[in-house]
């Protein structure tokens, strides 16, 4: 249920920017603006106008700084963007001239008619009208053309920025220390890469030009109105404060219900998710009635705020229309008065009326823009924040490169905690000889994987050192260090691709023969050949076309192919069928042959066979030794082990 932007989803636009049912006059020229909102692909992508846009969204903590960064990020596109701004200004300016010029045509027509009536002229001067109309047509073509060029370029810029943002985030993910991801869930990062980037994209591709056109329209229309008559302009301006008051009133009202609606929608959806997800539990505990009761209550509450919210957000448009008409009548009266005195022409009045009707639209849009910008800044801020997170500490200079790794591992007074305040490994020392098997044992959730993470330098020790063949692991290149280990985790990770690609993951330049040889050693070959497509079978999203055990075997094959001097194995607790289980055991044994192996062990047999056992409790290594030594100690390990053999009657 992530709130991904969905271009397929067409959101209606209740504030009706695209369509004005109550529209009195739809003058041809500056009607551009409503069109801009109504027909744009982005408007359909979700943000659009609508009640949402009017709602105060989240705000950025550092608006100015983020915007500056965003402009910087435009990089080579800064120049193009300035050009686009010029185009937008030109396009809008040309279209604003339209009504005035068309008004001239009307005036000419009028004069002609009057002349015909009074007999003072030859009638209508079609040549003049034709010229004027052609001029207007030219202007409109030019304006449309410029608008298209502008849109064409700007979508290019926006899409490219989106692309770069996504690329940078993806690259960033791989450079960040693992620590960052402890406190951040995947959904959050995914949301940045889709939603937040999309918000920025939309602002760049639409809102930016909208801001420009709105401002230019307001200024231009104002100028045009003033050139026609300052008295009429004054009258037209009178409606502004009135409309502002009303907008504010309605918005503040609908905001309350809108929030409430979103709130309850969240509750209802949450309840649905929970109950459908736990369907079997609901049934088993006869919870249907309780669940429906809760649902009905939430659903009814949602209804009462939903209709109010919808209703109020729809009220704005007709009310504004009425106010617009109020201004219209005022202007017409003023115009009539002036026309009688021959101060202005009828065509001018006609043009003025069109200007008045186009005045409110960009103003409402501008009123929204601060919200849009805030949203954008908030989204961009999240993206930048992510990009600015600290990278893994860089590899040091004067690195050591080993020709041959024997696999001797020394823990030298290791001290570690995920945060400095919570040290879990207090003081751990051990010396592991090449080829030994080390079992890491402990109750669930004791932190058995911590050692693994330290060995591969996903985390650095706070104090002390880990040495491989006598060298501090921090003196290796991370890539080199990690190449020394083969890793098979219980949480089998495979990616969407063919089986061949998945095995080859550990050694990209492996030949097909090598892959198949590794597959055979891991007992994968046989079942792969029974699958449709064999090694070329594509794994689907949830990798449901493979069983858990098969996946485990694949990861073993992957590790065998890498042929590392050391191994990290995470034994599966269960959930594998017996046959596969036997295969896994065999495959693991093949793999461990002659390599230093760290095994997060669950099977008693594995533990007993280990050369050395590390017992973990609450993250710390509390005991170490061989099986016999530890049993003799009678400590935590002994307790753990013996619990297995107590004669418990129940099962």
């Amino acid at each position: 249920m992530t709130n991904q932007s969905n271009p397929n989803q067409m959101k209606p636009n209740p504030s009706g920017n695209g369509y004005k049912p109550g529209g009195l006059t739809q003058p041809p020229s500056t009607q551009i603006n409503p069109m801009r909102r109504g027909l744009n692909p982005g408007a359909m992508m979700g943000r659009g106008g609508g009640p949402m846009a009017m709602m105060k969204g989240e705000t950025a903590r550092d608006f100015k700084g983020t915007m500056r960064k965003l402009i910087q990020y435009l990089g080579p596109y800064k120049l193009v963007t300035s050009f686009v701004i010029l185009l937008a200004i030109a396009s809008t300016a040309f279209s604003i001239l339209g009504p005035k010029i068309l008004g001239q045509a009307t005036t000419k027509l009028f004069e002609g008619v009057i002349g015909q009536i009074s007999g003072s002229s030859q009638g209508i001067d079609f040549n003049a009208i034709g010229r004027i109309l052609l001029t207007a047509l030219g202007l409109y073509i030019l304006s449309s053309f410029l608008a298209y060029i502008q849109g064409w370029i700007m979508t290019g810029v926006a899409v490219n920025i989106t692309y770069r943002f996504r690329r940078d985030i993806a690259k960033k993910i791989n450079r960040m220390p693992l620590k960052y991801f402890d406190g951040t869930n995947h959904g959050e990062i995914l949301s940045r890469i889709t939603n937040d980037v999309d918000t920025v994209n939309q602002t760049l591709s639409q809102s930016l030009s909208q801001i420009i056109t709105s401002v230019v329209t307001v200024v231009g229309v104002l100028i045009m109105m003033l050139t026609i008559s300052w008295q009429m302009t004054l009258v037209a301006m009178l409606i502004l404060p009135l409309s502002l008051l009303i907008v504010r009133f309605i918005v503040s009202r609908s905001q309350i219900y809108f929030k409430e609606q979103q709130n309850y929608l969240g509750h209802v959806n949450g309840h649905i998710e929970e109950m459908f997800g736990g369907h079997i539990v609901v049934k088993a505990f006869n919870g249907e009635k309780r669940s429906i009761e809760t649902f009905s209550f939430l659903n009814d509450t949602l209804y009462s705020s939903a209709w109010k919210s919808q209703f109020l957000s729809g009220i704005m448009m007709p009310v504004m229309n009425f106010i617009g008409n109020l201004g219209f009548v005022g202007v017409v009266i003023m115009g009539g008065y002036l026309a009688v005195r021959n101060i202005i022409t009828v065509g001018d009045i006609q043009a003025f009326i069109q200007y008045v009707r186009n005045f409110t639209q960009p103003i409402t849009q501008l009123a929204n823009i601060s919200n849009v910008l805030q949203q954008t800044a908030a989204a961009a801020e999240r993206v930048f924040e992510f990009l600015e997170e600290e990278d893994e500490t860089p590899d040091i200079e004067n690195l050591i490169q080993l020709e041959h790794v024997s696999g001797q591992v020394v823990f030298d007074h290791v001290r570690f905690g995920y945060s400095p305040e919570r040290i879990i490994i207090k003081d751990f020392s051990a010396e592991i000889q090449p080829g030994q098997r080390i079992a890491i044992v402990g109750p669930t959730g004791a932190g058995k994987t911590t050692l693994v993470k330290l060995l591969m330098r996903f985390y650095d020790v706070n104090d002390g050192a880990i040495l491989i063949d006598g060298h501090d692991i921090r003196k290796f290149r991370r890539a080199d260090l990690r190449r020394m280990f083969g890793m098979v985790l219980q949480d089998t990770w495979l990616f969407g691709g063919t089986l061949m690609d998945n095995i080859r993951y550990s050694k990209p330049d492996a030949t097909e023969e090598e892959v198949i040889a590794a597959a055979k050693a891991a007992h994968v070959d046989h079942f792969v050949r029974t699958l449709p497509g064999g090694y070329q079978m594509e794994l689907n999203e949830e990798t449901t076309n493979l069983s858990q055990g098969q996946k485990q075997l694949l990861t073993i094959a992957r590790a065998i192919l890498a042929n590392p001097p050391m191994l990290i194995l995470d034994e599966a607790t269960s959930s594998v069928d017996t046959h596969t289980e036997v295969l896994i055991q065999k495959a693991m044994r093949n793999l461990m042959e002659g390599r230093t192996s760290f095994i997060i062990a669950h099977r008693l047999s594995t533990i007993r066979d280990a050369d050395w056992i590390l017992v973990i409790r609450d993250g710390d290594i509390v005991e170490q030794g061989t099986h016999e030594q530890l049993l003799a100690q009678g400590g935590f390990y002994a307790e753990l082990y013996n619990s297995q053999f107590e004669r418990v009657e129940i099962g």
Partner: protein
Amino acid sequence: MTRIARYLKPYTLLIVGAILLLFIQANADLALPDYMSRIVNNGIQQGGVENAVPLALRKSTLDKINLFLTKEEQNAVDAAYLLIDSHSPDYQTYLSQYPILAKEPIYVLKQLEQNQIKTLNPILSRGLLTVSFLDRILANPAQAQAMGKGLGFDLSKIPSNFYQIFANMPAEQRAPLINAIQSRFNSMGESMISQMSISAVKAEYSALGVNTTSLQNGYILKTGGLMLLITLISVTATILVGYLAARVAAGLARDLRKAFFVRVSEFSNAEMEKFSTASLITRSTNDITQIQMVTMMMMRMVFYAPIIGIGGLIRAINTAASMWWIVAMMIVVLVGIIMSVFSLTLPRFKLIQSLIDRLNRVVRENLEGMMVVRAFNRQDFEEERFEKANRDLTRTTLFVSRVMVIMMPLMMFLMSGISILVIWVGSHQVAQSSIQVGSMMAFMQYTMQIFFAFMFMSMMFIILPRASISADRIADVLETEPSIKDPPEPKHFPEPFQGVVEFKQVCFRYPDAEENVLDDINLIARPGETTAFIGTTGSGKSTIVNLIPRFYDVTCGAITIDGIDIRDVPQHELRSKIGYVPQKSNLFSGTIESNLQYGDENATEEELQMAAEIAQAAEFINTNPDGFQAEIAQGGINVSGGQRQRLAIARALVKKAPIYIFDESFSALDYKTDAALRRALKKYVANSTIFIVTQRVATIKNADQIIVLDEGRIVGKGKHHELMQTCEVYRNIALSQLTQEELA
């Protein structure tokens, strides 16, 4: 859409009301351009003078006019006007209105019907025009010659006492001249004469001493007021429609959501699996929200578009029928543009969605496999995978955006172009006097209204299919009957309840599957005993226990409890006897306490504490500062898998059921916790019938009865040591887990 239409039934009245209101709104909206054009035509151009029938005129003027009228026409005019002179009763009032009255008597128009004015209009406009024309000639003989050009005779020759001479002529002599004037007027056309005579009326008004400005303002105010009134009607109608639409849409969504939820609550596992939980959630959230929005939009705009479109067409044709082709052309081009743009982009919108999914998948995989990626140093590979997904997405988005970007300038151009065309064609018609300038303006407004109506209707064709997909997805669920139902005449378990569960030749097959998952299952489980199921994955061991609470029904054979077929008792009664711990330990949001109480709402604090202790959950509950009041997030994600499992066990224990089912309920527990839990459990549920499904031999080594399953059949039944001897499958499983020594 039709499949969920019945849920609209309660709202029929509201919908009909909304449609009626939409008609009112459409009519008001369509009337507005007419008032606009009247303000421009009459108010501004004609200075507030609507027609050639003056409200008042000098007696001298009317006398002159009468000279050029036939007898009948004279009578008609005389009947319409009232003579006012200094003796008239209302002399003072009229004097203030028409100051000329002080010098000469005047005629004032009586209250007339609309059609009377219509008859008088041509008569008076002809008369007024003739007289004003003559007056101008008489007043300015010098220019007369020029003005008369083309008339066929020299106007300057008209004597200055023309009216007197003309009046004294006998009627027969006057007739030819009157006819000549009449035919000349006929050639000019009614509309032109009417417009020309307006200025004569205005001249007459100034002669009367009338304040023409206030006359004009009065007209504009009156018409403007009417316009505002109509807007008010339109606004009221719009708001009311909005109100009705909001109630219907939100109401429909509420009803659908409720029906949906109740229906899903009745579903058995078979239906849940058929639709999948994720899909059911999307259907009940996104799809219903979609329906709500579309309903709202339908009522407010989609119904409205055809009304105003057709209304606009009618009015446009009435205003200037000769320009119909412009409208037709506009519609064809408009619909053509929209359709082609959308046919080009719509399929790609779907593609974009799947590309976004792919991009997300790559990122998600990268995040989930962070350790593996880094362990194998494959960051570059991941970036490359992302790069490819990103590039594909970018390319398609760019294409779609660029096609969509063309829409706006094209539409803008179409609208402007149409306006220019209307002015060009219209001005010729104006020149031919077939329409007035104002009508042309009105026509332009109508075309714009039609433009938007058709634009909207085209959009509707794009939106509706999408909504109907949502509707179908909802209807699919609503129309699905749950496969497991209570019997019409339910039986009840005998008292006291024992809990002897018996499988009699049970077989089971998943719906739509080709083969049985379980075959020929016979077993008896008794109170106080533990029956354990073990087998490889896919052997059907989980399926068996899911048959007991009737999550599925057996395909053949029967399961009885205390001798009663479980299909004969109400589901509620059956499940009230069973404490069930699912494979996936689902917790609900709330507190630990509320989760445990899900087992028994009336459980006391001691009972909860007790259950927690047995389930080995007490330790971590008590170390939490909030104890039993600790928050549990949705799905229980804020506690570890092992803790979740222990809480799920505690929840079942709170129920104190005579039958317990543990479906791989110890898998997330380490051996130590597992053993401690089973030890505690043994004492607590000593008299219950217990079923355990597991893969761990250690967990069930001491069970009273172990059932070994292989490919849906029972291949071994007995105690651990017996099975070690007799059952090959069991021995294999055991050997893989424990060393020989431990197994002994």
